[in-house]
């Protein structure tokens, strides 16, 4: 009987927790008439923000993949002194408050910053430009990708890359033909997380890039700005981002299941994803 009472207690607590997590999402959809959402999203201010968000995130994600993938391969496949420190450094932005990330970027490349005068002499102005949004997104989102990519590359059986080498493939071909395809599932999962984090970026952006419509104002910044002037627009953007985030989460889950069922030998993939997801 006491057993049954405890189960009921657990069920109640679980119910409260779920309600707490679900109510804001539900409220978003009830507070704005759904058939008005397309119109609200069609407003120029939203369209501008959408354009800025898409542009900056495309570039930032391209940079994350282009730099993060080789770096993760290097870190994953090599033992070198200070490796643990390097991995920790990569993960630091994950736990850093976004506002700190923003002020850090400002301190690095802003006027009077670490590289401020050098950049000014070169005629480059970064803060409060679209490039600043790209940097802010890349800074906060890349660790999500790199971390997962390191785990995915570590899970590739070193015997397989050794085999590739003895079959005449140099280090480059071994990476393209063996390392990359075998880690692809893990890389994709990591990228999905990085993408979601990038689209939701707010704190670092507003400090480092400002909130200039058509230049640095992303969707999340527009929500903030429209709170006072037009709450319905803010809510509509909220609905859009919920749908986007839900889609991202769903594709991440589908990807993880698919990787688990389709990968033949490296069951380590599944372990990796569940451990770090």
């Amino acid at each position, binding site marked *: 009987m006491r057993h049954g009472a405890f189960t009921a207690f657990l069920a109640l607590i679980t119910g409260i927790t779920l309600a707490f997590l679900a109510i804001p999402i539900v409220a978003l959809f009830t507070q704005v008439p759904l058939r008005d959402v397309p119109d609200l999203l069609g407003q120029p201010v939203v369209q501008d923000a959408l354009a800025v968000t898409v542009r900056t995130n495309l570039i930032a994600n391209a940079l994350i993949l282009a730099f993060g993938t080789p770096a993760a391969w290097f870190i994953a496949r090599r033992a070198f002194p200070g490796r643990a420190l390097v991995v920790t450094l990569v993960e630091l932005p994950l736990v850093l408050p976004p506002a700190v990330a923003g002020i850090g970027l400002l301190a690095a490349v802003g006027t009077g910053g670490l590289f401020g005068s050098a950049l000014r002499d070169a005629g480059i102005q970064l803060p409060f430009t679209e490039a600043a949004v790209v940097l802010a997104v890349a800074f906060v989102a890349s660790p999500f990708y790199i971390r997962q990519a390191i785990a995915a590359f570590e899970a590739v059986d070193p015997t*397989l890359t*050794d*085999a590739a080498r*003895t*079959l005449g*493939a140099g280090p480059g071909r071994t990476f393209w033909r063996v390392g990359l395809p075998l880690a692809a599932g893990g890389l994709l999962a990591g990228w999905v997380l990085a993408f979601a984090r990038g689209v939701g970026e707010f704190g670092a952006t507003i400090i480092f890039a400002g909130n200039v419509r058509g230049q640095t104002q992303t969707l999340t910044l527009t929500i903030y700005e429209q709170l006072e002037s037009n709450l319905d627009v803010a809510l509509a953007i909220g609905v859009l981002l919920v749908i986007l985030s839900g889609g991202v989460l769903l594709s991440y889950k589908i990807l993880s299941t698919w990787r688990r069922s389709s990968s*033949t*030998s490296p069951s380590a993939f599944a372990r990796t994803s569940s451990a770090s997801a």
Partner: protein
Amino acid sequence: MLRAIAGLRRPDRGRIALGERVWFDSAAKLDLPPERRSVGLVFQEYALFPHMTVRANVGFGGEARVDELLERLRISHLAGERPGGLSGGERQRVALARALARDPDVLLLDEPLAALDAHTRTVVRGELQDVLAELALPALIVTHDFGDAAALADRIGVIADGHLRQQGTAAELVAHPADAFVAAFTGGNLLPGRGDGGVEVRLDAGGVVRATQPASGRVGVAVYPWEVEVALDAPADGVNGLPGAVHGLAPEGGRVRLRIGDVVLERPAEEIERLDLRTGTPAWAVFPPEAVRIVALE
């Protein structure tokens, strides 16, 4: 050792060369990367690429001979399969074909039969024997099993504790084991004892064994199971006989392995039946002095 030859592990010092071509020389600071050494390495667990078909696996090292190799190793029907669904023997053939596709100058096989169960092992060993015989290619095989080595190799080098103990054909190793390790590795009984300069060795476990060569100090008497006979009564003078109870009877095909005291021997099954040998039957392990090898004990 094979990883060092293939260039996957750097030896502390030494020199690795195939014919005229030097691959590694610690003195000359020369160390070619694996892809520049003409080796075909077959890994112990085969290390097939799980994301590629059999054809792509074989073609990874070189496209030119893929069809020929698939044909030759009888895996053409598996060309479109992924390695995940193949049996151990099939995987080995794919790994072999893949290693050969690069047209290597030497084939390296790391424990090629260790990943297989006992039944498959015999079959695959025979197949491997045929393939190696067909290839006009030097092959280096690492194995912990003397039976595998004897079946697959022309020459055998016995390495223990990082040292090469003996080199020779399987028959030579059995005929003249250089030391106790080689005698035991090649399947011999090793009975420790003490010699006093004559041809007789007093065994630690009791009894005296006569050899054809003199022995002094701590020595091992090596006798191979197939050179030992079984008798119910003590043998005539001049023939060695060690008494003991029969135990550990294990039929293998038409023959039976058994132990009499400390001695392992192998006899035809019908003889065991005729003599009515059972566990506990008192008997003699009998062998002539010519069957006795004296080896040093470390």
